């Protein structure tokens, strides 16, 4: 017991004396949340939009005037065909298109209601949502003025179409994804590097020629990173609550327990990598390749899994961060309870156990 304590204390020395790494460990999650948070909440200025005005009447002119007056949009009024518009979207030249139907004013005055079509590029969800909201509020304002003038109820319905990502998947889900990424980054990379460092520096050689138990080394490597990760979970949750207005809807205790499980998964992965890596650099690259990329691409965090080709959908199942991502999203955003996520938890738990057992069995008691 005293040995384990000494071991753990030694690991804390390693962590706290490497100040650059320490800064990264605690600073990274904060920096990322703030960066992403600003990208999410920052207002958009001078977004390029195109207005296709088939009406060219009083009402459409008045609305366009208001749009041009706002600082959010940079308006192009050239009349283009539908196909040209789509090409412009694909090339990223425009963020949104606004289409007035023919006889806009006439229909509005006679039927007291009309529609304007808003087409937004939803591959960038945040921008698309913000832009359509701005646009809708401008139209709403105009509609209210009309009502005051004419003393009749008039409704202009902005018909919104989100190109490329109609369901707006991914909105507000970057926080769960970020949690998965940060824990992977810290736990997988730092544990694998710290174990490989013992090999590279030759200290593993001395440790082996001593009565130490492999389990003791592993446990003591785990403890500091578990603590750091829990601190990071807390700071991410606090930041997303304070800055992004995204509080945890479900049980905080459940969220922490699930995070703890995922931390252990990540640590086990780090241990597994360290057994096969020969140098700290290769440990780092394997960690990045084996965790960061699949998490970004296949966990559903960046790209919806349902839209992937079948082979990739199948592969995504063996990525632990996919399950953790689903769990956190459910708890944070939907407010789910354990009943809703027990299956994901079980899968994650079995994966963790599997990796841990393999790693422990393959832990080398001699030099190769």
């Amino acid at each position, binding site marked *: 017991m005293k040995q384990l304590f000494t071991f753990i204390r*030694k690991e804390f020395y*390693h962590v706290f004396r490497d100040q650059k790494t320490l800064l990264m460990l605690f600073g990274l999650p904060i920096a990322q949340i703030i960066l992403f948070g600003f990208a999410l909440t920052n207002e958009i200025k001078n977004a390029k939009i195109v207005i296709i005005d088939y009406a060219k009447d009083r009402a459409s002119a008045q609305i366009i005037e208001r749009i041009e007056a706002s600082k959010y949009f940079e308006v192009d009024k050239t009349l283009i065909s539908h196909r040209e518009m789509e090409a412009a979207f694909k090339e990223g030249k425009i963020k949104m298109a606004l289409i007035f139907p023919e006889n806009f004013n006439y229909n509005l005055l006679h039927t007291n209601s009309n529609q304007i079509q808003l087409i937004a590029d939803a591959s960038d969800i945040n921008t698309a949502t913000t832009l359509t909201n701005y646009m809708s509020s401008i139209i709403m304002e105009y509609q209210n003025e009309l009502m005051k003038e004419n003393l009749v109820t008039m409704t202009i319905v902005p018909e919104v179409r989100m190109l490329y990502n109609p369901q707006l998947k991914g909105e507000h889900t970057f926080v769960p994804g970020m949690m998965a990424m940060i824990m992977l980054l810290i736990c997988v990379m730092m544990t694998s590097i710290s174990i490989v460092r013992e090999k590279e*520096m030759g200290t593993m050689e001395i440790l082996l*020629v*001593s009565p130490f138990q492999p389990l003791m080394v592993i446990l003591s490597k785990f403890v500091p990173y578990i603590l750091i990760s829990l601190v990071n979970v807390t700071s991410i949750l606090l930041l997303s609550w304070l800055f992004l207005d995204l509080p945890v809807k479900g049980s905080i205790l459940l969220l922490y327990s699930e995070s703890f499980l995922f931390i252990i998964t990540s640590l086990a992965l780090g241990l597994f990598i360290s057994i096969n890596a020969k140098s700290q650099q290769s440990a780092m690259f394997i960690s990045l390749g084996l965790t960061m990329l699949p998490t970004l691409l296949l966990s559903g965090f960046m790209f919806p899994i349902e839209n992937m080709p079948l082979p990739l959908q199948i592969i995504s199942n063996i990525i632990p961060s996919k399950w953790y991502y689903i769990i956190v999203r459910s708890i944070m955003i939907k407010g789910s309870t354990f009943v809703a996520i027990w299956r994901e938890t079980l899968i994650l738990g079995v994966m963790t156990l599997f990796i841990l057992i393999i790693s422990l069995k393959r832990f080398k008691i*001699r030099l190769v």
Partner: protein
Amino acid sequence: MNAIELNNLTKTYNDGSITAVDHLSFDVKEGELYGLIGPDGAGKTSIFRMLTTLLLPDEGTAKVNGYDIVKEYKTIRNIVGYMPGKFSLYQDLTVEENLNFFATLFGTSIKENYDLIKDIYIQIEPYKNRRAGKLSGGMKQKLALCCALIHKPTVLFLDEPTTGVDAVSRQEFWEMLGRLKKQGITILVSTPYMDEAGLCDKIALMQSGKILSIEKPQAVISNFNEKLYGISKGNLYKIMLDLRKYEQTVSCFAFGDALHLRLKSNADDNVSNIKMYLKNHGYMDTEVKEILPGIEDCFIKLLG
């Protein structure tokens, strides 16, 4: 009783294409200071790693304190002290923290075995709050020795402990080994420095995984059985090249500020003959005299 026994011990690398240790057998008696002497690549480190149970031998067996290095590796790991060739302590931990860590690792404390390391530790104690990575080469080795000793091992394995250490520290280090020997600790030490060989009780001269000879250092020298001539002053490099062309020459090597020359015969007039030969080649004021051989001369002779 033998503290260490090697029996046809063999280690190969790269699927057998490189033989690092080739059917080696030798015994180290309890309390002996035993030296493995040989150039880089002789297989010294492989022997150490097998004896400390870090590597499995491909053939043969070995015992440390009567325990088999393969089957009873756990027992061996408890009782031996090992200092690898490369400095292998935690560079970001202080001197004291390193020592404390290794003491606890073996279930003991600095206090308990302070007597054993006192002589050595006293020299690094002023720097006990300094990080190990910031110590000088000699200090590092002293600290590493302390860490290897802190659990009072019965056998101490030191792989090239003085490589890269200044001459004064090297001498101090060997004085410490002498004191440890007096405490009854068996020490197996390797070194590429021939001058250190004379300080061992017994030395095994190694080359390419094989042992060329095992003797007491004095015996190695007395077995030389040949006269050796030292030549100094003048342009030694040119003289060496010319002497190698001399018909009587067996070998001629530079040793610091002198050349060591072996001749085919041990005739008494060799010195004057050499002087004559050198004069004929235009070297006027060289100094030629008969000298006593060192271990290195014996080693070169053994290599043939």
